[in-house]
Protein backbone atom coordinates (compact mmCIF):
# COMPACT_ATOMS: atom_id res chain seq x y z
CA UNK A 1 0.00 0.00 0.00
CA UNK A 2 1.30 3.42 -0.85
CA UNK A 3 -1.13 6.09 0.34
CA UNK A 4 -0.41 9.80 0.20
CA UNK A 5 0.22 11.28 3.65
CA UNK A 6 1.16 14.61 5.12
CA UNK A 7 4.80 14.56 6.24
CA UNK A 8 6.11 17.28 8.52
CA UNK A 9 9.36 18.36 10.11
CA UNK A 10 8.92 17.91 13.87
CA UNK A 11 11.86 20.14 14.71
CA UNK A 12 10.34 23.11 12.89
CA UNK A 13 6.95 22.48 14.46
CA UNK A 14 8.49 22.46 17.94
CA UNK A 15 10.37 25.65 17.20
CA UNK A 16 7.15 27.34 16.09
CA UNK A 17 5.22 25.80 19.00
CA UNK A 18 2.45 24.48 16.77
CA UNK A 19 0.67 21.21 16.11
CA UNK A 20 0.23 19.46 12.75
CA UNK A 21 -2.94 20.57 10.96
CA UNK A 22 -6.23 18.81 11.60
CA UNK A 23 -8.43 21.08 9.50
CA UNK A 24 -8.01 23.24 6.40
CA UNK A 25 -8.21 26.33 8.66
CA UNK A 26 -5.22 24.96 10.59
CA UNK A 27 -3.40 24.63 7.26
CA UNK A 28 -4.01 28.25 6.35
CA UNK A 29 -2.93 29.50 9.78
CA UNK A 30 0.21 27.33 9.71
CA UNK A 31 1.04 28.84 6.33
CA UNK A 32 1.15 32.24 7.97
CA UNK A 33 3.13 31.00 10.98
CA UNK A 34 5.85 29.41 8.90
CA UNK A 35 6.03 32.22 6.37
CA UNK A 36 6.56 34.66 9.28
CA UNK A 37 9.32 32.36 10.50
CA UNK A 38 10.99 32.47 7.10
CA UNK A 39 10.36 28.80 6.41
CA UNK A 40 8.35 27.59 3.43
CA UNK A 41 5.12 25.99 4.69
CA UNK A 42 4.88 23.25 2.04
CA UNK A 43 7.49 21.62 -0.16
CA UNK A 44 6.24 20.76 -3.65
CA UNK A 45 7.94 19.41 -6.75
CA UNK A 46 5.44 21.19 -8.95
CA UNK A 47 7.26 20.63 -12.23
CA UNK A 48 6.35 16.96 -12.08
CA UNK A 49 2.63 17.87 -12.06
CA UNK A 50 1.40 14.59 -10.52
CA UNK A 51 2.79 15.94 -7.28
CA UNK A 52 0.31 18.82 -7.46
CA UNK A 53 -2.42 16.35 -8.39
CA UNK A 54 -2.14 14.67 -4.97
CA UNK A 55 -3.46 17.89 -3.41
CA UNK A 56 -6.54 17.88 -5.60
CA UNK A 57 -7.18 14.18 -4.92
CA UNK A 58 -7.36 14.73 -1.17
CA UNK A 59 -9.16 18.06 -1.25
CA UNK A 60 -11.88 16.78 -3.57
CA UNK A 61 -12.37 13.75 -1.33
CA UNK A 62 -12.57 15.83 1.86
CA UNK A 63 -14.91 18.40 0.29
CA UNK A 64 -17.23 16.31 -1.82
CA UNK A 65 -16.63 12.74 -0.67
CA UNK A 66 -15.50 9.87 -2.91
CA UNK A 67 -18.75 10.02 -4.92
CA UNK A 68 -17.57 13.03 -6.92
CA UNK A 69 -14.57 11.31 -8.42
CA UNK A 70 -16.45 8.04 -8.81
CA UNK A 71 -18.91 9.86 -11.05
CA UNK A 72 -15.98 11.28 -13.05
CA UNK A 73 -14.43 7.84 -13.28
CA UNK A 74 -17.67 6.42 -14.62
CA UNK A 75 -17.81 9.22 -17.17
CA UNK A 76 -21.15 10.64 -16.01
CA UNK A 77 -22.13 13.80 -17.92
CA UNK A 78 -20.97 17.06 -16.36
CA UNK A 79 -19.38 15.24 -13.42
CA UNK A 80 -16.33 17.55 -13.50
CA UNK A 81 -18.66 20.56 -13.08
CA UNK A 82 -19.57 19.44 -9.54
CA UNK A 83 -19.39 22.41 -7.12
CA UNK A 84 -16.88 20.38 -5.05
CA UNK A 85 -14.43 20.49 -7.98
CA UNK A 86 -14.73 24.28 -8.18
CA UNK A 87 -14.28 24.61 -4.42
CA UNK A 88 -11.21 22.34 -4.57
CA UNK A 89 -9.69 24.55 -7.27
CA UNK A 90 -10.52 27.68 -5.30
CA UNK A 91 -8.89 26.33 -2.13
CA UNK A 92 -5.77 25.38 -4.08
CA UNK A 93 -5.44 28.84 -5.58
CA UNK A 94 -5.99 30.41 -2.16
CA UNK A 95 -3.16 28.30 -0.82
CA UNK A 96 -0.91 29.28 -3.76
CA UNK A 97 -1.78 32.96 -3.26
CA UNK A 98 -1.02 32.73 0.47
CA UNK A 99 2.46 31.43 -0.53
CA UNK A 100 1.67 28.06 0.97
CA UNK A 101 4.10 26.35 -1.39
CA UNK A 102 7.80 27.04 -1.48
CA UNK A 103 8.91 29.85 -3.77
CA UNK A 104 9.72 28.53 -7.22
CA UNK A 105 7.84 25.26 -6.70
CA UNK A 106 7.20 25.02 -10.44
CA UNK A 107 10.93 24.67 -11.04
CA UNK A 108 11.33 21.82 -8.56
CA UNK A 109 11.09 18.24 -9.78
CA UNK A 110 10.18 15.14 -7.86
CA UNK A 111 12.51 13.09 -10.09
CA UNK A 112 15.57 14.53 -8.35
CA UNK A 113 13.90 14.19 -4.92
CA UNK A 114 14.56 17.89 -4.35
CA UNK A 115 11.10 18.16 -2.76
CA UNK A 116 12.06 15.60 -0.09
CA UNK A 117 15.38 17.34 0.48
CA UNK A 118 13.54 20.59 1.21
CA UNK A 119 11.67 18.88 4.04
CA UNK A 120 14.63 17.15 5.71
CA UNK A 121 16.96 20.13 5.36
CA UNK A 122 14.41 22.28 7.18
CA UNK A 123 13.73 24.60 4.26
CA UNK A 124 10.09 23.54 4.24
CA UNK A 125 7.89 22.51 7.15
CA UNK A 126 5.46 20.09 5.49
CA UNK A 127 5.11 17.96 2.39
CA UNK A 128 2.16 16.04 0.96
CA UNK A 129 3.66 12.97 -0.64
CA UNK A 130 3.43 9.25 -1.16
CA UNK A 131 4.70 6.89 1.52
CA UNK A 132 7.28 5.67 -1.00
CA UNK A 133 9.35 8.76 -0.16
CA UNK A 134 10.00 7.46 3.36
CA UNK A 135 12.80 5.11 2.33
CA UNK A 136 14.51 7.85 0.33
CA UNK A 137 14.35 10.34 3.19
CA UNK A 138 15.71 7.74 5.57
CA UNK A 139 18.62 7.05 3.27
CA UNK A 140 19.45 10.61 2.21
CA UNK A 141 18.23 12.62 5.18
CA UNK A 142 21.31 12.11 7.38
CA UNK A 143 19.51 10.65 10.42
CA UNK A 144 16.52 12.97 9.93
CA UNK A 145 14.22 9.94 9.99
CA UNK A 146 16.33 7.89 12.41
CA UNK A 147 16.33 10.72 14.98
CA UNK A 148 12.54 10.84 14.88
CA UNK A 149 12.30 14.28 13.31
CA UNK A 150 9.95 13.13 10.56
CA UNK A 151 6.28 13.41 11.51
CA UNK A 152 3.34 12.06 9.53
CA UNK A 153 -0.41 12.60 9.75
CA UNK A 154 -3.51 12.05 7.66
CA UNK A 155 -4.69 14.80 5.34
CA UNK A 156 -6.72 17.41 7.29
CA UNK A 157 -10.47 17.78 7.07
CA UNK A 158 -12.34 20.63 5.44
CA UNK A 159 -15.14 22.32 7.39
CA UNK A 160 -18.53 21.33 5.98
CA UNK A 161 -16.94 18.68 3.76
CA UNK A 162 -18.57 15.35 3.09
CA UNK A 163 -15.53 13.08 2.90
CA UNK A 164 -14.60 10.74 5.75
CA UNK A 165 -11.31 11.97 7.29
CA UNK A 166 -10.15 8.33 7.27
CA UNK A 167 -10.35 8.10 3.46
CA UNK A 168 -7.07 7.59 1.69
CA UNK A 169 -5.74 8.29 -1.78
CA UNK A 170 -2.64 6.96 -3.51
CA UNK A 171 -1.52 3.74 -5.11
CA UNK A 172 -3.49 0.90 -3.59
CA UNK A 173 -1.83 -2.23 -4.91
CA UNK A 174 1.86 -1.65 -5.64
CA UNK A 175 0.91 -1.23 -9.31
CA UNK A 176 -0.32 -4.82 -9.58
CA UNK A 177 -3.58 -5.04 -11.44
CA UNK A 178 -5.83 -7.57 -13.10
CA UNK A 179 -7.49 -6.85 -16.42
CA UNK A 180 -11.27 -6.49 -16.21
CA UNK A 181 -11.49 -8.40 -19.48
CA UNK A 182 -10.05 -11.56 -17.92
CA UNK A 183 -12.36 -14.52 -17.25
CA UNK A 184 -13.18 -15.48 -13.66
CA UNK A 185 -10.84 -18.42 -13.89
CA UNK A 186 -8.02 -16.22 -15.19
CA UNK A 187 -8.66 -13.74 -12.39
CA UNK A 188 -8.41 -16.53 -9.81
CA UNK A 189 -5.07 -17.73 -11.15
CA UNK A 190 -3.80 -14.15 -11.30
CA UNK A 191 -4.74 -13.61 -7.67
CA UNK A 192 -3.06 -16.86 -6.72
CA UNK A 193 0.06 -15.80 -8.57
CA UNK A 194 0.10 -12.44 -6.76
CA UNK A 195 -0.30 -14.18 -3.41
CA UNK A 196 2.08 -17.13 -3.81
CA UNK A 197 4.27 -16.16 -6.74
CA UNK A 198 5.01 -12.51 -6.09
CA UNK A 199 4.33 -11.71 -2.45
CA UNK A 200 6.59 -14.37 -0.97
CA UNK A 201 8.12 -14.07 2.50
CA UNK A 202 11.32 -12.66 1.00
CA UNK A 203 9.44 -10.04 -0.98
CA UNK A 204 7.35 -9.07 2.05
CA UNK A 205 10.50 -8.70 4.17
CA UNK A 206 12.18 -6.63 1.47
CA UNK A 207 9.19 -4.29 1.30
CA UNK A 208 9.22 -3.84 5.06
CA UNK A 209 12.97 -3.30 5.22
CA UNK A 210 12.72 -0.55 2.60
CA UNK A 211 10.09 1.25 4.67
CA UNK A 212 7.06 0.19 2.62
CA UNK A 213 3.97 -1.80 3.49
CA UNK A 214 3.25 -4.71 1.14
CA UNK A 215 -0.37 -5.34 0.19
CA UNK A 216 -0.84 -8.27 2.55
CA UNK A 217 -3.21 -8.64 5.50
CA UNK A 218 -2.12 -9.87 8.94
CA UNK A 219 1.50 -8.74 8.92
CA UNK A 220 1.20 -6.76 12.18
CA UNK A 221 3.79 -8.97 13.90
CA UNK A 222 6.33 -8.44 11.18
CA UNK A 223 5.72 -4.68 11.14
CA UNK A 224 6.15 -4.46 14.91
CA UNK A 225 9.66 -5.87 14.81
CA UNK A 226 10.82 -3.38 12.19
CA UNK A 227 12.85 -0.36 13.18
CA UNK A 228 10.35 1.73 11.17
CA UNK A 229 7.38 0.29 13.05
CA UNK A 230 5.76 3.65 13.89
CA UNK A 231 5.59 4.64 10.27
CA UNK A 232 4.71 1.20 8.92
CA UNK A 233 1.88 0.73 11.41
CA UNK A 234 0.57 4.20 10.60
CA UNK A 235 0.47 3.32 6.89
CA UNK A 236 -0.95 -0.15 7.50
CA UNK A 237 -3.75 1.17 9.71
CA UNK A 238 -4.51 4.02 7.36
CA UNK A 239 -4.93 1.62 4.48
CA UNK A 240 -6.79 -1.00 6.52
CA UNK A 241 -9.23 1.41 8.12
CA UNK A 242 -9.90 3.65 5.14
CA UNK A 243 -13.60 3.45 4.16
CA UNK A 244 -12.53 4.50 0.66
CA UNK A 245 -9.14 4.32 -0.99
CA UNK A 246 -8.99 6.32 -4.20
CA UNK A 247 -6.43 5.26 -6.80
CA UNK A 248 -4.25 8.08 -8.16
CA UNK A 249 -6.29 9.95 -10.76
CA UNK A 250 -3.72 9.85 -13.54
CA UNK A 251 -3.76 6.06 -13.31
CA UNK A 252 -7.50 5.69 -12.84
CA UNK A 253 -8.40 7.82 -15.86
CA UNK A 254 -7.73 7.05 -19.51
CA UNK A 255 -4.36 8.26 -20.86
CA UNK A 256 -6.13 10.93 -22.91
CA UNK A 257 -7.96 12.35 -19.89
CA UNK A 258 -4.92 11.92 -17.61
CA UNK A 259 -2.67 13.97 -19.89
CA UNK A 260 -5.27 16.74 -20.07
CA UNK A 261 -5.64 16.55 -16.28
CA UNK A 262 -1.93 17.03 -15.56
CA UNK A 263 -1.75 19.88 -18.08
CA UNK A 264 -4.74 21.65 -16.50
CA UNK A 265 -3.52 21.07 -12.95
CA UNK A 266 -0.25 22.76 -13.90
CA UNK A 267 -2.16 25.77 -15.16
CA UNK A 268 -4.44 25.80 -12.10
CA UNK A 269 -1.43 25.97 -9.76
CA UNK A 270 0.11 28.72 -11.91
CA UNK A 271 -3.23 30.55 -11.66
CA UNK A 272 -3.29 30.91 -15.45
CA UNK A 273 -6.79 29.36 -15.46
CA UNK A 274 -9.64 29.79 -12.97
CA UNK A 275 -11.18 26.85 -11.07
CA UNK A 276 -14.22 27.25 -13.32
CA UNK A 277 -12.09 26.97 -16.47
CA UNK A 278 -10.31 23.98 -14.96
CA UNK A 279 -13.62 22.22 -14.40
CA UNK A 280 -14.83 23.05 -17.90
CA UNK A 281 -11.60 21.95 -19.59
CA UNK A 282 -11.72 18.66 -17.74
CA UNK A 283 -15.42 18.21 -18.41
CA UNK A 284 -14.60 18.24 -22.13
CA UNK A 285 -12.44 15.14 -21.66
CA UNK A 286 -15.24 12.98 -20.23
CA UNK A 287 -15.71 9.83 -22.25
CA UNK A 288 -12.36 10.21 -24.01
Amino acid sequence: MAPIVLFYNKELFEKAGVQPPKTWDDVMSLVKTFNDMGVAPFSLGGQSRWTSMMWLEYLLDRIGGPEVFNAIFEGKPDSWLDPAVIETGTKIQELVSAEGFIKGFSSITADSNADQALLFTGKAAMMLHGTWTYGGMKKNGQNFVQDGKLGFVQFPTVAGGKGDPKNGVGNPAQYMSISTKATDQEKESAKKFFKDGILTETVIDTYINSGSVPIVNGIEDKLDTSEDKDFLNFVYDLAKNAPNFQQSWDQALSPTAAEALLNNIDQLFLKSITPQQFAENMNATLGK
Partner: protein
Amino acid sequence: MSNAVSTAPRTTAARGQSEQTEKRKAALAWLTVPALFFFLVFAVVPLAGVFILSFADWDGIGAIGIAGMDNWFSVLADPGLYNALGLTFLIMIASWLVQTPISLLLGVFTAGSQRYRAALAVLYFLPLLLSSAAVAIAFKALLDPNFGLATGLGLPFLAQDWLGVPHLALGLVIFVIAWQFVPFHTLIYQGGVRQIPKSLYEAAEIDGAGIIKQFFHITLPQLKYTIITSSTLMVVGSLTYFDLIFVLTGGGPGNSTRILALDMYLRGFRANLMGPASVIAVILVVIGLALALFLQRLGGKDKHGSQLEGL
Protein backbone atom coordinates in the same frame (compact mmCIF):
# COMPACT_ATOMS: atom_id res chain seq x y z
CA MET B 1 28.25 13.31 -59.03
CA SER B 2 26.29 14.04 -62.22
CA ASN B 3 27.88 17.46 -62.35
CA ALA B 4 31.34 16.08 -62.70
CA VAL B 5 30.27 13.72 -65.43
CA SER B 6 28.29 16.22 -67.47
CA THR B 7 31.11 18.73 -67.60
CA ALA B 8 33.39 16.22 -69.24
CA PRO B 9 31.99 16.35 -72.80
CA ARG B 10 32.06 20.15 -72.88
CA THR B 11 35.36 20.04 -74.80
CA THR B 12 34.76 19.30 -78.47
CA ALA B 13 34.72 15.60 -77.77
CA ALA B 14 34.69 12.71 -80.18
CA ARG B 15 31.53 10.64 -80.49
CA GLY B 16 33.07 7.55 -78.91
CA GLN B 17 33.87 9.50 -75.82
CA SER B 18 30.28 10.65 -75.33
CA GLU B 19 28.98 7.12 -75.85
CA GLN B 20 31.34 6.05 -73.11
CA THR B 21 29.94 8.70 -70.79
CA GLU B 22 26.41 7.46 -71.47
CA LYS B 23 27.48 3.99 -70.40
CA ARG B 24 29.19 5.31 -67.32
CA LYS B 25 26.07 7.30 -66.44
CA ALA B 26 23.96 4.15 -66.58
CA ALA B 27 26.43 2.36 -64.32
CA LEU B 28 26.43 5.27 -61.89
CA ALA B 29 22.63 5.28 -61.75
CA TRP B 30 22.77 1.79 -60.28
CA LEU B 31 24.92 3.11 -57.46
CA THR B 32 22.03 5.23 -56.24
CA VAL B 33 19.86 2.17 -55.63
CA PRO B 34 20.96 1.53 -52.02
CA ALA B 35 20.46 5.18 -51.13
CA LEU B 36 17.09 5.24 -52.84
CA PHE B 37 16.08 2.08 -51.04
CA PHE B 38 16.87 3.56 -47.64
CA PHE B 39 15.16 6.81 -48.56
CA LEU B 40 12.08 4.89 -49.57
CA VAL B 41 11.96 2.66 -46.50
CA PHE B 42 12.89 5.24 -43.89
CA ALA B 43 11.40 8.42 -45.34
CA VAL B 44 8.72 7.86 -47.95
CA VAL B 45 6.94 4.89 -46.40
CA PRO B 46 6.69 6.39 -42.88
CA LEU B 47 5.52 9.68 -44.40
CA ALA B 48 2.77 7.90 -46.27
CA GLY B 49 1.93 5.99 -43.08
CA VAL B 50 1.62 9.18 -41.05
CA PHE B 51 -0.55 10.74 -43.73
CA ILE B 52 -2.89 7.75 -43.69
CA LEU B 53 -2.93 7.65 -39.86
CA SER B 54 -4.02 11.29 -39.78
CA PHE B 55 -7.40 10.04 -41.03
CA ALA B 56 -7.52 7.18 -38.54
CA ASP B 57 -8.79 6.73 -35.03
CA TRP B 58 -6.09 4.84 -33.13
CA ASP B 59 -4.84 4.73 -29.55
CA GLY B 60 -1.48 3.21 -30.51
CA ILE B 61 -2.29 -0.30 -29.31
CA GLY B 62 -5.81 -1.40 -30.24
CA ALA B 63 -7.57 -1.68 -33.57
CA ILE B 64 -7.28 1.13 -36.10
CA GLY B 65 -10.59 2.75 -37.00
CA ILE B 66 -11.51 5.28 -39.65
CA ALA B 67 -11.99 8.84 -38.46
CA GLY B 68 -12.33 10.59 -41.81
CA MET B 69 -11.65 14.32 -41.48
CA ASP B 70 -12.46 14.38 -37.74
CA ASN B 71 -8.81 14.53 -36.63
CA TRP B 72 -8.08 17.39 -38.99
CA PHE B 73 -11.10 19.39 -37.90
CA SER B 74 -10.47 18.83 -34.20
CA VAL B 75 -6.76 19.73 -34.43
CA LEU B 76 -7.32 22.77 -36.63
CA ALA B 77 -10.02 24.02 -34.25
CA ASP B 78 -7.80 23.50 -31.18
CA PRO B 79 -6.22 26.73 -29.88
CA GLY B 80 -3.38 24.53 -28.62
CA LEU B 81 -2.20 24.07 -32.22
CA TYR B 82 -1.82 27.80 -32.80
CA ASN B 83 -0.09 28.25 -29.48
CA ALA B 84 2.35 25.48 -30.47
CA LEU B 85 2.85 26.93 -33.96
CA GLY B 86 3.53 30.40 -32.58
CA LEU B 87 6.02 29.05 -30.05
CA THR B 88 7.75 26.95 -32.69
CA PHE B 89 8.34 29.98 -34.90
CA LEU B 90 9.30 32.13 -31.94
CA ILE B 91 11.93 29.64 -30.82
CA MET B 92 13.07 29.20 -34.43
CA ILE B 93 13.61 32.92 -34.99
CA ALA B 94 15.10 33.55 -31.57
CA SER B 95 17.45 30.59 -31.95
CA TRP B 96 18.62 31.85 -35.33
CA LEU B 97 19.15 35.37 -34.01
CA VAL B 98 21.12 34.13 -31.02
CA GLN B 99 23.10 31.34 -32.63
CA THR B 100 24.12 32.85 -35.98
CA PRO B 101 26.20 35.79 -34.77
CA ILE B 102 27.83 33.76 -32.00
CA SER B 103 28.76 30.81 -34.20
CA LEU B 104 29.87 33.08 -37.04
CA LEU B 105 32.23 35.01 -34.81
CA LEU B 106 33.46 31.91 -33.04
CA GLY B 107 33.94 30.22 -36.42
CA VAL B 108 36.05 33.09 -37.70
CA PHE B 109 37.99 33.13 -34.46
CA THR B 110 38.73 29.40 -34.39
CA ALA B 111 39.65 29.37 -38.08
CA GLY B 112 42.88 31.17 -37.20
CA SER B 113 45.95 28.98 -37.13
CA GLN B 114 47.26 30.04 -33.70
CA ARG B 115 47.70 27.15 -31.33
CA TYR B 116 45.60 28.58 -28.43
CA ARG B 117 42.71 28.95 -30.84
CA ALA B 118 42.89 25.28 -31.71
CA ALA B 119 42.83 24.43 -28.01
CA LEU B 120 39.81 26.67 -27.43
CA ALA B 121 38.07 25.17 -30.47
CA VAL B 122 38.22 21.76 -28.81
CA LEU B 123 36.63 23.19 -25.66
CA TYR B 124 33.88 24.93 -27.62
CA PHE B 125 33.15 21.66 -29.31
CA LEU B 126 32.43 19.75 -26.09
CA PRO B 127 28.69 20.51 -25.63
CA LEU B 128 28.01 18.87 -28.98
CA LEU B 129 29.26 15.57 -27.63
CA LEU B 130 26.64 15.45 -24.87
CA SER B 131 23.20 13.97 -25.37
CA SER B 132 20.30 16.41 -25.21
CA ALA B 133 18.69 14.55 -22.35
CA ALA B 134 21.88 14.75 -20.29
CA VAL B 135 22.19 18.47 -21.03
CA ALA B 136 18.59 19.07 -19.98
CA ILE B 137 18.93 17.11 -16.73
CA ALA B 138 22.17 18.91 -15.89
CA PHE B 139 20.64 22.34 -16.48
CA LYS B 140 17.59 21.42 -14.47
CA ALA B 141 19.78 20.46 -11.52
CA LEU B 142 21.94 23.57 -11.89
CA LEU B 143 18.90 25.83 -11.94
CA ASP B 144 17.08 24.27 -9.01
CA PRO B 145 16.12 27.35 -6.97
CA ASN B 146 17.10 25.77 -3.64
CA PHE B 147 19.95 23.38 -4.32
CA GLY B 148 21.33 24.64 -7.64
CA LEU B 149 24.10 26.98 -8.76
CA ALA B 150 22.52 29.92 -6.93
CA THR B 151 23.23 28.32 -3.56
CA GLY B 152 26.44 26.63 -4.61
CA LEU B 153 28.10 29.77 -5.93
CA GLY B 154 26.28 32.23 -3.69
CA LEU B 155 24.71 34.07 -6.61
CA PRO B 156 21.16 34.89 -5.49
CA PHE B 157 20.11 36.29 -8.90
CA LEU B 158 20.36 32.77 -10.29
CA ALA B 159 17.65 31.60 -7.90
CA GLN B 160 14.81 32.42 -10.26
CA ASP B 161 11.69 30.37 -10.82
CA TRP B 162 13.25 29.31 -14.14
CA LEU B 163 10.80 26.63 -15.07
CA GLY B 164 7.77 28.21 -13.41
CA VAL B 165 7.52 31.61 -15.13
CA PRO B 166 6.51 31.33 -18.81
CA HIS B 167 8.91 33.89 -20.30
CA LEU B 168 11.83 32.71 -18.17
CA ALA B 169 11.24 29.11 -19.20
CA LEU B 170 11.08 30.12 -22.86
CA GLY B 171 14.27 32.14 -22.58
CA LEU B 172 15.95 29.26 -20.81
CA VAL B 173 14.96 26.85 -23.58
CA ILE B 174 16.42 29.19 -26.22
CA PHE B 175 19.60 29.57 -24.19
CA VAL B 176 20.13 25.86 -23.65
CA ILE B 177 19.46 25.08 -27.31
CA ALA B 178 22.05 27.70 -28.27
CA TRP B 179 24.51 26.30 -25.73
CA GLN B 180 24.18 22.90 -27.30
CA PHE B 181 24.12 23.78 -31.00
CA VAL B 182 26.45 26.77 -31.32
CA PRO B 183 29.48 24.41 -31.38
CA PHE B 184 28.10 22.60 -34.41
CA HIS B 185 27.51 25.78 -36.38
CA THR B 186 30.87 27.15 -35.26
CA LEU B 187 32.41 24.11 -36.88
CA ILE B 188 30.56 24.78 -40.14
CA TYR B 189 31.69 28.42 -40.17
CA GLN B 190 35.23 27.46 -39.25
CA GLY B 191 35.35 25.22 -42.30
CA GLY B 192 33.82 27.95 -44.46
CA VAL B 193 36.31 30.56 -43.35
CA ARG B 194 39.26 28.27 -44.00
CA GLN B 195 38.11 27.87 -47.61
CA ILE B 196 38.47 31.59 -48.30
CA PRO B 197 41.66 32.17 -50.37
CA LYS B 198 44.38 33.96 -48.43
CA SER B 199 45.11 36.10 -51.51
CA LEU B 200 41.88 38.02 -50.99
CA TYR B 201 43.02 39.15 -47.55
CA GLU B 202 46.52 39.92 -48.79
CA ALA B 203 45.09 42.11 -51.54
CA ALA B 204 42.80 43.83 -49.07
CA GLU B 205 45.68 44.50 -46.73
CA ILE B 206 47.71 46.10 -49.51
CA ASP B 207 44.70 48.27 -50.28
CA GLY B 208 44.72 49.33 -46.63
CA ALA B 209 41.57 47.57 -45.36
CA GLY B 210 41.50 46.93 -41.59
CA ILE B 211 40.31 43.75 -39.90
CA ILE B 212 36.73 44.99 -39.55
CA LYS B 213 36.53 46.02 -43.21
CA GLN B 214 38.03 42.70 -44.24
CA PHE B 215 35.38 40.89 -42.21
CA PHE B 216 32.48 42.75 -43.79
CA HIS B 217 33.80 42.91 -47.35
CA ILE B 218 35.56 39.56 -47.71
CA THR B 219 34.67 37.08 -44.98
CA LEU B 220 30.94 37.73 -44.84
CA PRO B 221 30.25 37.75 -48.62
CA GLN B 222 32.46 34.70 -49.10
CA LEU B 223 30.49 32.89 -46.40
CA LYS B 224 27.16 33.47 -48.16
CA TYR B 225 26.52 29.81 -48.88
CA THR B 226 27.87 28.70 -45.54
CA ILE B 227 25.40 31.04 -43.87
CA ILE B 228 22.57 29.61 -45.95
CA THR B 229 23.58 26.04 -45.11
CA SER B 230 23.91 26.75 -41.42
CA SER B 231 20.63 28.69 -41.35
CA THR B 232 18.78 25.90 -43.13
CA LEU B 233 20.04 23.40 -40.59
CA MET B 234 19.10 25.74 -37.73
CA VAL B 235 15.66 26.60 -39.01
CA VAL B 236 14.60 23.17 -40.17
CA GLY B 237 16.34 21.59 -37.17
CA SER B 238 14.39 23.80 -34.78
CA LEU B 239 11.22 22.05 -35.94
CA THR B 240 12.53 18.88 -34.38
CA TYR B 241 13.76 20.29 -31.04
CA PHE B 242 12.04 17.84 -28.85
CA ASP B 243 14.19 15.78 -26.52
CA LEU B 244 15.80 18.76 -24.86
CA ILE B 245 12.55 20.62 -24.23
CA PHE B 246 10.74 17.45 -23.25
CA VAL B 247 13.23 16.73 -20.48
CA LEU B 248 13.86 20.34 -19.49
CA THR B 249 10.32 21.72 -19.21
CA GLY B 250 7.97 19.01 -20.48
CA GLY B 251 6.20 21.82 -22.38
CA GLY B 252 5.47 23.71 -19.16
CA PRO B 253 4.84 25.82 -17.25
CA GLY B 254 1.30 25.40 -18.51
CA ASN B 255 1.76 25.25 -22.26
CA SER B 256 4.37 27.97 -22.55
CA THR B 257 7.12 25.86 -24.13
CA ARG B 258 4.93 23.26 -25.80
CA ILE B 259 6.27 23.51 -29.35
CA LEU B 260 4.84 21.58 -32.29
CA ALA B 261 7.14 18.55 -32.11
CA LEU B 262 6.52 18.20 -28.38
CA ASP B 263 2.79 18.71 -28.84
CA MET B 264 2.85 15.89 -31.37
CA TYR B 265 4.61 13.56 -28.96
CA LEU B 266 2.40 14.37 -26.00
CA ARG B 267 -0.76 13.89 -28.02
CA GLY B 268 0.46 10.69 -29.61
CA PHE B 269 2.29 8.88 -26.86
CA ARG B 270 0.97 10.41 -23.65
CA ALA B 271 -2.67 11.00 -24.53
CA ASN B 272 -2.73 7.99 -26.91
CA LEU B 273 -4.29 10.03 -29.70
CA MET B 274 -2.31 8.82 -32.71
CA GLY B 275 -4.71 10.36 -35.25
CA PRO B 276 -4.41 13.97 -34.10
CA ALA B 277 -0.68 13.46 -33.51
CA SER B 278 -0.31 12.35 -37.12
CA VAL B 279 -2.14 15.48 -38.28
CA ILE B 280 0.50 17.54 -36.48
CA ALA B 281 3.24 15.39 -38.00
CA VAL B 282 1.91 16.15 -41.49
CA ILE B 283 1.78 19.87 -40.66
CA LEU B 284 5.40 19.66 -39.43
CA VAL B 285 6.54 17.99 -42.66
CA VAL B 286 4.82 20.62 -44.80
CA ILE B 287 6.33 23.48 -42.82
CA GLY B 288 9.77 21.87 -42.90
CA LEU B 289 9.69 21.36 -46.66
CA ALA B 290 8.40 24.88 -47.30
CA LEU B 291 11.13 26.40 -45.14
CA ALA B 292 13.88 24.34 -46.74
CA LEU B 293 12.73 25.32 -50.23
CA PHE B 294 12.48 28.98 -49.25
CA LEU B 295 15.99 28.99 -47.82
CA GLN B 296 17.38 27.32 -50.93
CA ARG B 297 15.78 30.06 -53.03
CA LEU B 298 17.53 32.68 -50.90
CA GLY B 299 20.78 31.40 -52.38
CA GLY B 300 19.69 32.80 -55.73
CA LYS B 301 19.63 31.19 -59.18
CA ASP B 302 23.40 31.31 -59.63
CA LYS B 303 23.77 28.79 -56.82
CA HIS B 304 26.22 26.65 -58.69
CA GLY B 305 28.20 29.58 -60.02
CA SER B 306 31.61 30.27 -58.56
CA GLN B 307 32.33 32.89 -55.97
CA LEU B 308 35.96 32.77 -56.86
CA GLU B 309 35.74 34.13 -60.39
CA GLY B 310 38.95 35.82 -61.47
CA LEU B 311 41.17 34.16 -58.90
